[in-house]
């Protein structure tokens, strides 16, 4: 199994949703602002539950928030 990269569009989605702050998003899904920042920067991969909560806040499917790529090719 090769190295994986999970990218996300949280920052873009926050601005498309009334310029929501990291603090507001964190409060809605039950994590700290620092954790939202770490997720946005790709330093921390959230649990599946937190990922679904983030997608639910923005009202989009999970794959529109997070994208998975492996070093072996396809997404």
């Amino acid at each position: 199994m090769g190295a994986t990269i999970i990218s996300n569009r949280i920052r873009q989605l926050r601005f498309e949703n009334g310029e929501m702050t990291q603090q507001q998003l964190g409060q809605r899904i039950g994590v700290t602002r620092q954790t939202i920042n770490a997720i946005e920067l790709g330093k921390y991969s959230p649990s599946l539950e937190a990922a679904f909560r983030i997608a639910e806040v923005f009202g989009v499917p999970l794959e529109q928030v997070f994208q998975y790529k492996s070093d072996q090719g396809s997404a």
Partner: protein
Amino acid sequence: MSFREKSAWVTLIAILLVFALFVSHAPRLSHPGGRDFHTLLACIAAFVVIETVAYFVLRLRYPEDARTPIDEREQLINLKATRLASVCYVIGSFLAVMTLHHGASAVVIGYLVVLAFVIAEIVKYAARIVYYRRGV
């Protein structure tokens, strides 16, 4: 900086201060039940006081952050730091017991186990700070 990272800084500084205080006041470890033991108790009391006061000051300055429950990333950070600290404590305690074969007294071994515990705690809080800075 999150509330829990600030707390980790406060605890790390408190441990280092109290440990320095203990080392400076207990240069000899050969008096069982003597002044060294009282110094140890005084240091533990000093640590509890420093921690309690610092925690309440932090809570007063950052009431909203303090109320935020610990989240999954912070739990992961705590677990990773505790794992590192437990390895340090086990190795330190083992080395302390091994000094028995070099003629160390029970008092010295006891203090070495305490030293292993203090080092493990320093490692734990330093690791937490590093993980908080790195993201995880």
